[in-house]
């Protein structure tokens, strides 16, 4: 009975079968296939981490801005000859008539004491300190009030009434956030370009190491498109495997960081996984595979073009 031909797959190592076996005329494991997968995995890991960092910075920036731009504070200082309750009521009246104000809540002396406790300590004699009255105001961020007009109206309503829109804080935070975003985008751009360069180089090295196979296929009558397709398929699968491996490692790293951040207080929190976030991360291995495929095709076609 004739032995049924088997491909070499069954005898090859588990590592090769999992990550580099492509059933291609190009060699699977060995110095080129596995190296390429590892290089692509490493670069995708770095690119995914950077992309994740960019998303985290964006998330934090939006969160800070949202928190600050959605809140106002009305400060009512004690003025000689003025009844504090009348000052407060006058301010509340102005706030209640202003469109875009969602809530206005007068803070109690305990609330105010809690706010300044980090600076003055818990043992302060609350009754002895002339705490200002504070009104915590929440605004509709979708249709915010005219803050200049509101500040003027409040100051006019009673002496000692002043609006704090946190504008200075907001400007500082926006400035810092914009700088952080710009830096992270620059790092992402550098990592992306480096990834493209390294994947291109590794793909070319893989092809160079196996140029005899390309020559052989050419000499036995294979058409250029067949050779390019075989090699593209090989590098597509290697690229995808490397990319997915890198992405999986970066997701594990994100998971570890998220656990660490949940147990402590961090200024930058992990972004929640939105569909577009996931899509962005999934694009990393796809892009790596595409770079590998395009490089392989261009290199092979250029090499074949030099042959008869």
């Amino acid at each position, binding site marked *: 009975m004739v032995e049924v031909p088997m491909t070499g797959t069954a005898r090859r190592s588990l590592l090769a079968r999992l990550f580099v076996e492509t059933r291609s005329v190009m060699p699977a*494991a060995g110095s080129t296939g596995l190296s390429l997968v590892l290089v692509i995995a490493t670069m995708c890991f770095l690119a995914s981490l950077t992309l994740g960092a960019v998303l985290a910075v964006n998330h934090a920036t939006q969160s800070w801005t949202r928190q600050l731009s959605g809140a106002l504070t009305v400060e009512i200082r004690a003025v000689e000859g003025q009844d504090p309750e009348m000052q407060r009521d006058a301010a509340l009246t102005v706030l209640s008539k202003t469109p875009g104000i969602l809530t206005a809540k007068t803070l109690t002396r305990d609330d105010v004491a809690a706010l300044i406790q980090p600076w003055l300590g818990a043992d302060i004699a609350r009754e002895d300190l002339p705490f200002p009255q504070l009104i915590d105001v929440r605004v509709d961020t979708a249709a915010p009030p005219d803050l200049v007009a509101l500040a003027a109206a409040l100051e006019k309503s009673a002496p000692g009434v002043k609006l704090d829109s946190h504008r200075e804080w907001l400007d500082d935070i926006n400035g810092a956030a914009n700088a952080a975003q710009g830096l992270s985008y620059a790092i992402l751009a550098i990592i992306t370009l480096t990834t493209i360069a390294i994947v291109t180089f590794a793909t070319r090295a893989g092809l160079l190491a196996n140029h005899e196979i390309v020559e052989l*296929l050419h000499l036995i009558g294979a058409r250029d498109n067949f050779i390019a397709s075989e090699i593209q398929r090989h590098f597509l699968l290697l690229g995808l495997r490397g990319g997915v491996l890198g992405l999986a490692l970066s997701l594990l790293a994100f998971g570890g960081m998220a656990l660490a951040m949940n147990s402590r207080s961090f200024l930058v929190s992990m972004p929640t996984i939105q569909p577009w976030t996931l899509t962005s991360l999934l694009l990393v291995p796809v892009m790596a595979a595409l770079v590998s495929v395009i490089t392989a095709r261009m290199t092979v076609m250029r090499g074949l073009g030099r042959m008869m």
Partner: protein
Amino acid sequence: MIRFENVGLRYESGPEVLRDVTFTLERGSFHFLTGPSGAGKTSLLRLMFLDHKPSRGLITMFDRPIATLTRHELPDIRREIGVVFQDFRLIAHLTAYENVALPLRARGKSEDSYRADVIELLQWVGMGERLNALPSTLSGGEKQRVAIARAVMGRPRLLIADEPTGNVDAEMGNRLLHLFVELNRLGTSILIATHDRELIARNPAPALVLHKGEVEIHG
């Protein structure tokens, strides 16, 4: 059928390695190609299996002038030529079966259409028991037979073998020669490049003798 007329070859700006080479190989012929080392045998073979263009002269393969063929037409001519390379050029990670099937795979044929033929051919060259063997596990003679099977898999009209007995003992050399004679009997033109005078003596056939880039026909 195959004609070289005043063919010359030089690599880049180097000296001419082939000069005014003129000969004709008729359909179904059997020839040896011989000559001392450095005489230009490998260069002549490269021209014959369309690995290189001549610097001058006219090459006609299967009644078609090579110079007039487009890049799209050249693979069709190459498929008519089977080559047994001196160093075999078996793909190391493919089994004997996969190596022999390569010419048909390269033509886009499905495995179902060629599976039985590949097995039959490997059995014919005495490799029926080693279908799944990787080249690294094969002896020199076994590699040679796999390389021959691959060269004839696409039913070529011309088979070129470069030093086919160079890596095997005398007995295996005889068996391989018998294979070539059998293929020739089935209608394939054969050109064997060899240094082996005994091989030529055992199978008297016309010989293209290369000397310093020029060819003479003996016999």
